[in-house]
């Protein structure tokens, strides 16, 4: 069995990182255990909860089912990369204002998903938001406030 590591270069939030990893290491575990921006969370590790949602080349994907090796050469954005110079992204601000979270564990994934949902043009109505945010489970039941936050941020981004 191979035990060799390979060099992997990751571009995360505009910063370049050089790592030496086993090929089986997922992007999620590379982020959390090797690079330590731990805002991206692990809830199920099988693509069933959405807590690990990040952007790869601007699109929302699940870091738990992405190998770190696959993400080489792509631009990765995590929750830590959203705010600019301490200024919250409109989606982050809307989540705070609408109380769109409770325990906060799913929140990074919800916000990354919401940013993409708006960018994709899938935030046109409450029902569309509910459908296109369905890949992010929230056990605390913050859904009504999440919908309100996405609606608010979508209007803000549009204006």
């Amino acid at each position, binding site marked *: 069995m191979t*035990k060799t590591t390979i060099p992997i270069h990751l571009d995360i939030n505009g910063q370049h990182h050089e790592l030496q990893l086993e090929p089986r290491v997922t992007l999620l575990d590379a982020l*959390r255990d090797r690079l330590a921006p731990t805002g991206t969370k692990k809830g199920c*590790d*099988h693509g069933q909860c959405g807590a690990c949602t990040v952007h790869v080349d601007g699109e929302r994907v699940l870091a738990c089912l992405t190998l770190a090796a696959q993400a080489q050469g792509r631009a990765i954005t995590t929750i830590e990369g959203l705010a600019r110079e301490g200024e919250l992204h409109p989606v982050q601000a809307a989540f705070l204002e609408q*109380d769109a979270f*409770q325990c906060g*564990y*799913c929140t990074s994934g919800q916000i990354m998903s919401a940013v993409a949902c708006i960018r994709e043009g899938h935030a046109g109505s409450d029902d569309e938001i509910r459908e296109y945010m369905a890949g992010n489970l929230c056990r605390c*039941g*913050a859904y009504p406030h999440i919908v309100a936050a996405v609606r608010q941020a979508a209007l803000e981004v549009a204006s």
Partner: protein
Amino acid sequence: MTLELSLNQQPAHARQGSSIGQPLTRRDGFLKVTGAARYAADNHPPGMLHAVLAVSSITRGRVASLDIEAAKAHAGVVEVMTPRNRPALAADPDAKDHPFMFRLDLLQNDQVRYPNQTIAVVIAETLEAATEGAALLSPRYEALPARVGLDDAESFVPRGVGVGGPAVQHKGDIEAGLKSARTRIEATYETPAQYHNAMEPHAIVAAWDGDRLSIDTPSQGLAMAQGRIAGLFGIAPQNIHIRSPFLGGGFGSKGMISGPQVLGILAARLVGRPVKLVLRREQMYGPVGHRAPTRQTLRMGMDGEGRLTAIHHHAKTASSTFDDFFEPAADASHTLYASPAITTSHEAVRLDTGTPLFMRAPGEATGSIALESAIDEAAHACGMDPLEFRLRNHAEVEPMTGKPFSSKALRECYSQAAKAFGWASRPLQPRLMRDADGFLTGWGMGTATFPAIMFQAEARAVLKADGSGLMETGAQDMGQGAWTAFAQIAADGLGLDIEQVDFRAGSSDLPNAGIAGGSGHTATAGMAIHNAGAAVIARLADLATGNEASPLFGAGNEGVLARGGRLYRRDDESRSESYAEILARAGLTEIEGHGKGAPDPASQETYAKHAHGAVFAEVKVDPDFGQIRVTRLVGAFAAGRVINPRLVRSQYYGGMIWGVSFALHEEAITDRRSGRIQNANLAEYHVPVNADVPSVEALLVHEDDPYVNALGIKGVGEIGITGTAGAVANAVWHATGVRPRRFPIRIEDLLV
């Protein structure tokens, strides 16, 4: 110095400018929306190793062999912990010194007593190596047949249910009540095993330094966890420092320290390095508690005017083969509806599962869905509107005890929620409403209730020379908003603006804040904070009123009030002095005060204390497919004083969504041959997704309660699930004419 406020003393929040009641956004919100909030598994002390559990694939029997060599041969694996080399413990993990000490599986032997029980722990340099090492152990077993269903074992009457209440309770003559009834109903309802499934899996990062232990782990009760670990390892509690600033959800499953968390500490001890252990999602279906299945039979009798003459609520449930926790489902019938005769009774079996534990509204949720369904059936049997029937049977005193309620704004809840929902236009008979798309539409309701519980808590308040304040208590925020609500109470108690208060919580080296559970944390730790604030203000007032140089000289403690960082004379607010001036004159850098929160025994004896609510639900059912969607939920709740309406509304929403989940989604499905849960994951163990949740409204009904505690707080964390689950079930009946008796309600139940 400790000072307890008497109930008649005017609390600060009654004054102008208090933080209490303000809809502040979360103080920890910035950290949470930027990903900077640090949860247990986000910690990486230097030299840390990763531990992964190997868990049993059988349900009952013993581990015959493990291929430890294969695991150790995997590059990066450092050690494999099994019963053979697990470090010694000072206490037997199977000992049970008191009812809240739950037995833990800590590799004490080779026996397997439930699926997903730990059989070994693999410790490695990387998470990947530890995970694969655990797979390489390839265990072999001697297996015994599994006992998995409520009919699979001999039933018995447990010694106590829930927190130790009697298994059987009577009031009046139930058979006479049934006999005298004009109308009777009898129905049996089944609820499944449910798993908490907090989004954050249980995790621990443990580091030993000699006999001192440093831990990051989510805990709903830091002092209890500290005490339990101290007992197991034979070290002093103060040698253990637990940090739990944020829990990624708890719902009861992080109330007591679990076996896997202790195994992380043992692993760190074994290898002499810091260790991180995080449960895999499927491993959460066993060792960290669950809501036990129930089968509940309700018998009710009603007189000619629809008044209840008897309620008999019987519940069969299950515990594990090796420990006791019995879901007190039938106790739901103690508090809501007036009846001259009430009997509640429980029986139980022992199954090959992990021990069930408290799960959000334990007993109340399971009991409520059955009771509220039966009440709906009873109303229909009497030809009455379900709301009218509930009002007819409204309890003016607590039915089981005859005690007066400390406060009860249930009638206001009914009327406000009914009006907001539009209940008045509901047809009495089922299957009469269709929407424009042809969907069967139904309206149902349920009454919500949850006891106002208090535990024990302590807090420490400090006023500093610069006029700012510090409040410390080891409170736990699992999402309910402790960081914010307690800071508001602290600011109120200290007479400061909230920006002037440094509030510290979530760490075991702070005063014991008790447990975040039973919807009692805000009341309990809130009262400790309130009293600590009062104590330090009293000390400050002493300094001022006793000093001739102060404009407050001679006013006496009762003669001053604290506001905005100044003390004022009550009778002449033009005479005041800032905290900083008082401390400077006294030459003090800081003063402190301590406070406790605890239930008042006298009012406890006199009053029944409960929060109440009413929930109305609309569902739409596809007539061909039996597919159910909740389209509207309106709840109104009266739970005493609201510290922060923004956070309280979130708590109600969350509870109501759990109610929807109980009625329509959640169920652990067991393979009866092997005893294994077949949907131990988040794809097939269904919790609602965003698209399942309709427009939700929660009305906050004003309620002053002078008896529960000086702040008038009851509790809001669990009440939302009660009432809602039954309201959804009753709406399904109203839409379809099919009475749900087994939960969750499935497509096939409505394919007619």
